[in-house]
């Protein structure tokens, strides 16, 4: 039972975007670490399928390469080809890698929570024509893929599967050309008939299966207050690595930030517990 995915798109979208923004805006390595942990436990609670095995590699690459590109900082560790490798540049590289990983993890969660129908629900109200274009295209893509596969089977019986690259390119281009012919006219006809039935005459109301409830309202308020506090009032985000690293003074604002970022996991866990409890009562 993933409670967070059941929230109204406006609330969940804004929450995820502000989590990403806080991570990206902050220059603070502690916030980056908190964000990674929060995003990762949220990722686990979502049972997301996007693979993350490459992320440690990206982290290592960014952390290791930064001192090579940046020679700012005062604490020289050693010299490489006559260039100073500094502690500050190394820590900054670790911070950069951490932020990149955190943002990638948050987006893995985003891709699981905000599906294309939620995205269309969000922007369909504001931009009906753009939403219509995207939803038409979204419907056509699977149609094209299955149509293309069908045509490929036919083409394979004409041109052998194992052939030179030029023949293969030609084969696929023939398929592509067929797809265009098949769909272009159909799509225009579809819109013409929509027009004949009065599409665009009046202001369009669009159906959405999401209802804005009190819980959504609460999440929205929580997101906005948390975001404004962390970005503008907590002073967590400003931090300097060069020429010398600032000292980190731990105070309550770090805890508040952690609470803010861990909220969706808590919501999901709460949903899970409630679900298990309800099942056990049957």
């Amino acid at each position, binding site marked *: 039972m993933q409670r967070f995915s059941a929230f109204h798109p406006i609330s969940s979208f804004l929450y995820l975007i502000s989590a*990403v923004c806080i991570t*990206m*805006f902050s*220059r603070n390595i502690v916030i980056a670490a908190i964000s990674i942990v929060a995003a990762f436990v949220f990722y686990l609670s979502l049972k997301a399928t996007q693979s993350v095995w490459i992320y440690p590699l990206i982290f290592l690459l*960014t952390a290791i*390469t930064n001192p090579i*590109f*940046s020679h700012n900082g005062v604490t020289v560790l050693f010299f490489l080809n006559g260039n100073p490798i500094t502690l500050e540049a190394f820590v900054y590289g670790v911070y*950069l890698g951490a932020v*990149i990983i955190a*943002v*990638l993890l948050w*987006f*893995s969660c*985003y*891709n699981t929570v*905000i599906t*294309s129908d939620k*995205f269309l629900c969000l922007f369909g109200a504001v*931009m*009906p*024509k*753009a939403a*219509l*274009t*995207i939803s*038409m*295209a*979204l419907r*056509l*893509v699977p*149609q*094209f*893929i299955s149509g*293309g596969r069908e045509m*490929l089977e036919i083409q394979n019986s004409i041109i052998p599967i194992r052939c030179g690259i030029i023949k*293969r*390119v030609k084969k*696929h*281009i023939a*398929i*592509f*050309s067929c*797809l*265009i*012919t098949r*769909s*272009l*006219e159909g*799509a*225009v006809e*579809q*819109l*013409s008939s929509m*027009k004949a039935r009065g*599409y*665009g005459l009046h202001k369009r109301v669009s159906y959405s299966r999401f209802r804005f409830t009190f819980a959504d309202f609460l999440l929205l308020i929580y997101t906005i207050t948390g975001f404004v506090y962390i970005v503008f009032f907590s002073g967590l*985000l*400003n931090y*300097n690595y060069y020429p010398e690293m600032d000292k980190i003074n731990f105070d309550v604002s770090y805890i508040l930030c952690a609470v803010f970022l861990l909220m969706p996991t808590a919501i999901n866990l709460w949903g899970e517990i409630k679900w298990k409890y309800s099942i056990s009562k049957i």
Partner: protein
Amino acid sequence: MSVLKKTIASILLLIAVPITVILSYTLFSNNRYDIASLIIAVLSTLAFVLSFEKNAANGKLVAVIAVMIALSVAGRFVFSPIPFFKPVTSIVIITALYFGGECGFITGAFSALLSNFYFGQGPWTPFQMMVWGLVGLLSGVLARYIIKNKLTISLWGIFSGVFYSMVMDIWTTLWADGGFNVERYFAFFATSLPIMAVYAVSNVVFLLLMTKPIGKKLQRIKTKYGI
């Protein structure tokens, strides 16, 4: 939306970019070029989408654009047996050549958005939308010169492949570095060179083989339905 509302929206959008630059300069003590450029990418894409929203009085155009977007996304699957052969850029260019720069921008931007529904959204989405949109816009504006002969089409295919790769490398640098580090940019540029070359070649092949046939079909639809 009333006319007044629309005017206010366009004025707000117009002054939003300089405001972003000023705010990012004053709000963040360190120069956060990555955040500023991300916001500007979002705003500039938004400007085109809003104008599409306003101007696409002809609903049939929506259908054609939807088909072209779906083609460019499905092309990544259809052509999957051939490595690195992704027709997105070529489809965007062809659409722009026959339907103008604005349609090109929308096709490019939405292709990026849509293909990321399949391959994963990320902080790169706004930049990707803007760059593919720009490729479409430029091809629409320069359509007369591009479509002249096979040589100009091939040159444009190479240029757009290089352009896309170079601008995306700017974003990668900004993101991986926080600021714009020239050395790092050249490092990214060097590592992406082979892929860039393959993209440029595949663009040329695709454009040479497809511009005429697809163009013919688009022209026919244009005449038949009066788009």
